[in-house]
């Protein structure tokens, strides 16, 4: 890079390292060309930082002139992120209650359901969360391309925090002695099992989405079938809790209808339709070519 032979003092080396890191946000070919230009012109590190930042910003802005990253941001990060956050929150609460009851008192937490039913519910919800997260991540990566770092951050924070913020704002949850550092950790790190599952699965999906863009048709069908089955299962099983609440409250509580229970699951499942459509289109094009 420019001035590479005489990099000199530590600060200059650090600055060239920064130029290196920034240039990684460019396409591989362009990165090589820009680094070559710096090496050839022997320009100062300050100007190299300014130049490469300018190019990165222009390229990032250029990515948002097409509709795909916008669909990823609005349709997945914002729209699917909200119900996914509530699903992760629910899994976390239900799992936490059972684990706390078991490890503290050695008993099953009373939900008016059998332990087997509770286990089945938790297992199905966890698998469904994994499937939804991976699919959302894949489509997010596929649509966003190089803008994925931004759409991913919005999606991640939306899933981690939106349910929590909603519960706090509605007064259903009160923060006692909120410590800024702890709040920051809770808001940004996947510290509980559900958000950990989500993060791993969605990150893997996004990585695959950026690399492959389109799933093979057979894999897309398998994934769509699995999502459909688990969506039906969790909709049906969540009805157990509604019935149990009705019994427990002697009819004072009216359970949520199955259509309303299904709605958030449908919203988080929409990326599979996009994934199927793109896989089918790719398959048709491949057939026409061969």
């Amino acid at each position, binding site marked *: 890079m420019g001035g590479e032979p005489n990099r000199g003092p530590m600060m200059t080396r650090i600055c060239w390292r920064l130029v290196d890191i920034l240039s990684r946000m460019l396409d591989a070919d*362009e990165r*090589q060309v820009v680094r*070559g230009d710096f090496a050839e*012109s022997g320009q100062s590190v300050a100007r190299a930082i300014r130049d490469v930042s300018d190019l990165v910003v*222009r390229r990032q802005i250029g990515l948002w002139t097409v509709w795909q990253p916008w669909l990823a941001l609005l349709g997945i990060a914002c729209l699917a992120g909200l119900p996914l956050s509530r699903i992760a929150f629910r899994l976390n609460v239900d799992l936490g209650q059972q684990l706390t009851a078991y490890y503290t008192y050695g008993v099953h937490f009373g939900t008016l359901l059998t332990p087997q039913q509770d286990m089945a519910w938790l297992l199905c919800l966890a698998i469904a969360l994994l499937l939804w997260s991976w699919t959302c991540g894949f489509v997010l990566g596929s649509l966003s391309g190089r803008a994925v770092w931004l759409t991913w951050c919005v999606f991640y924070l939306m899933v981690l925090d939106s349910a929590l913020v909603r519960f706090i704002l509605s007064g259903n949850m009160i923060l006692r002695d909120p410590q800024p550092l702890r709040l920051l950790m809770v808001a940004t790190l996947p510290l509980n099992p559900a958000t950990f599952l989500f993060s791993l699965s969605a990150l893997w999906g996004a990585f695959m989405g950026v690399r492959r863009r389109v799933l093979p048709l057979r894999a897309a069908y398998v994934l769509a079938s699995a999502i459909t089955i688990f969506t039906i299962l969790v909709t049906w099983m969540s009805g157990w809790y509604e019935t149990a609440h009705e019994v427990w409250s002697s009819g004072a509580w009216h359970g949520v209808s199955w259509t309303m229970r299904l709605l958030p699951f449908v919203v988080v499942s929409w990326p599979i339709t996009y994934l199927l459509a793109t896989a089918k289109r790719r398959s048709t094009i491949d057939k026409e070519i061969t």
Partner: protein
Amino acid sequence: MLGEFEYLILSAATRLHEGAYGAAIRQEIEEATRHRCSIGALYTTLDRLETKGLIKTWMGDPTPQRGGRPKRMVRVTATGIRAASDFYLALRRVSRGVSWEANRIAVR
């Protein structure tokens, strides 16, 4: 109609001919205009010119002078030459009868 920066790039690339690539075009523009030319502006404009079909770019061979990294070579197409020529003629027509030197002195 071309933009002024697009015209500068086309002119520099035409003058450099076989030796037209990113860093060389940038140096030409900086020397001619006595203004900084940012890499960001240069490469995004090269992309735009290529989309319009006014230039063709390709990756050149790596050179030791560039730390073994390739150049982005540029060639102005026939359409590019026509567009630059039209721009230059328009500039000459619109400047006819205008003496910038005289105006500059008058302003002083």
